[in-house]
């Protein structure tokens, strides 16, 4: 890269000053782009290592994790039928006592994000929760969209469900985790009734400790208000919340 472009490249993640091979980009840039795309595609298509995740979640002391599959039988179906990713593949018999908070760890569009960030985030988050709260054993969900958590939360009799899910990978961000919080989970909840903390992806995005604090303040706000979503974001709890939170506007 030329001396002219070097400081500019440091000032932006955009692929500027790539140089030219005729009218095309140089070979090194073609390969760098291909490598970034490969990482993003692998994040979408490589399956979640469920056994490893169950073992790691088991170490949190919340009981033995359960595993739930959505109605999407494979990745190709998952990608084309978001409706199937939102419902369980079989009747849910989770057999636990009612809890204040249900935790769902879902592959979503990036198993890599879940593998890297879900457990460290929960390790930061759990000690910050109000000690009177009961937390259900974590549920691992595969081929899952956010709304699958509504079914799981309802089956667990939970007042709140927190879904940690792999976000759609960008070209330079294949491991971004999203956290969706929903009050009174049940099938048919609108996306506008959730709160979302996105781009959990240290060191480039939100770090685990900050994300944990944000989620815990949302949990506290939701319990006080008896609601999540636009009401929580726009209501009297706004002052508690860093800018990273939004009312969910789309279904990952």
């Amino acid at each position, binding site marked *: 890269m*030329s001396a*002219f*472009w070097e*400081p*500019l490249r440091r*000032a*932006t*993640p*955009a*692929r*500027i*000053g*790539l140089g*030219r091979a*005729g*009218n*095309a*980009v140089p070979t090194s*840039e073609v390969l760098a*782009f*291909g490598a*970034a*795309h490969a990482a*993003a*595609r692998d*994040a*979408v298509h490589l399956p979640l290592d469920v056994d490893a995740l169950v073992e790691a979640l088991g170490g949190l002391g919340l009981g033995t994790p359960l595993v739930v599959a959505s109605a999407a039988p494979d990745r190709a179906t998952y*990608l*084309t*039928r*978001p*409706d199937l990713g939102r419902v369980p593949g079989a009747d849910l018999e989770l057999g636990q006592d009612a809890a204040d908070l249900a935790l769902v760890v879902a592959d979503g*569009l990036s198993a890599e994000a879940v593998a890297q960030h879900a457990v460290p985030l929960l390790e930061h988050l759990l000690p910050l929760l109000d000690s009177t709260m009961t937390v259900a054993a974590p549920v691992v969900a595969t081929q899952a969209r956010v709304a699958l958590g509504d079914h799981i939360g309802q089956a667990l009799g939970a007042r709140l469900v927190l879904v940690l899910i792999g976000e*759609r*990978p*960008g*070209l*330079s*961000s*294949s491991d971004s985790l999203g956290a969706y919080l929903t009050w009174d989970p049940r099938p048919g909840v609108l996306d506008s009734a959730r709160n979302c903390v996105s781009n959990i992806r240290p060191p480039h995005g939100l770090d685990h400790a900050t994300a944990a604090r944000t989620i815990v303040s949302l949990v506290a706000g939701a319990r006080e208000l008896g609601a999540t979503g636009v009401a929580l974001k726009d209501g009297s709890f706004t002052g508690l919340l860093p800018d990273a939170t939004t009312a969910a506007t789309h279904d990952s």
Partner: protein
Amino acid sequence: MRYRHSLHGHGFEFDGLVEVLARATPLRSGDVLAGCAARSDTERMAARMVLADLPLSVFLEEQVVPAESDDVTRLILDTHDKEAFAPVSGLTVGAFREWLLDAAARRDTALLTAVAPGLTPEMVAAVSKIMRNQDLIAVAAATEVVTGFRTTMGLRGRLSTRLQPNHPTDDPAAVAASILDGLLLGSGDALIGINPASDNPGTVADLLRLLDDVRLCYEIPTQSCVLTHVTTTIDLIEAGLPVDLPFQSIGGTQGANEGFGVTLAMLAEADEAARSLGRGTVGDEVMYFETGQGSALSADAHLGTGGRPVDQQTLEARAYGVARAFRPFLVNTVVGFIGPEYLYDGKQIVRAGLEDHFCGKLLGVPMGVDVCYTNHAEADSDDMDTLLTLLGVAGCTYVMAVPGADDVMLGYQSTSFHDALYARQVLGKRPAPEFEEWLATVGLLDADGSVRDIDPAATVLKELAR
């Protein structure tokens, strides 16, 4: 009305135009998701045979989306030009395809321009469904839609670009660096247009000033846009900000537009407000619209007559019907942005891009295409190269130009500054004439019309790298 057809010993029955159109559509995931796709290839061909035999006039009689509940249908019917329709009014959809191809073979651009106001989006969508890719390209290439603001768009032999210098936090220095890179590679003659990360009016205003300052400082004949909601833009015009082109995403049903938070009256207000500023020099078209197959379904606003799902391509053509009513400067179908649940792979994206371009142009809309894909679609740069090349052949007005094809704000891949240079090189295309003259002035234009590879530190533009 029920339509019946037998093929290969199987009888098929279709309930109304909505179902015929949907079943006749080339396979795409969004129609499967909506539950309206053909259930077999044979059924799809049977539907196409039914469609080919329907008179074009049926689309004026049988509504795909009921007029009583949808203002887009009312707009389409109210603005239909019967006189322009007369030359094709007696044709079937199948005969109309042949009429179009005959006009294209004779390069009868005037005939295609004259018929446009007589065509409805549904007629155009219908004929596209029985056209092969080469038909879509041949007819689009013979069609011309010319518009103007500070540059002239849509002239034969030209291929323009929207320079898209997006940044995840709208950092002015980073945006300026991307603009510099794009200008040095000959991009930006259709537009320098930013998708802001924030829809905060203050941020939008800052970006508008930045773009206007750059344009004035280097005397660049182009136009700028910060893509924010049309009501925000109207407020900014009233506040005296330098707005060239109001932007809005639009869809093909009233419900889809409500999902975007817009009404037809708002679009008219924005058009009037921006035009009243008189900022254009070679023309006074001001509106910039974006569309894309699947937007109505994703807003759950895709149902038509009888409560049946309307296929996403027909609804997309209706979005061009909306655009046309406001004399846009540019329209952009963001073809692969929405994801694999609407367009699954490269084949579906390529087909949709050609359909959208054909339908828009035939309706008289200045069509550009965001040749793009997301990382969860089965598509890659090779598919984009294919679609870009095909669209260049089809006479596409403009494409997007993003640094290195990587939009670091929106998280998807589009076409790059380099891609535009490639397309111009292999197809013998040039930038818009006003912008080409400017490239010559700043020493970037080579004798053969290509863009010179020069040391940025030796150009007047280097000051953009502050």
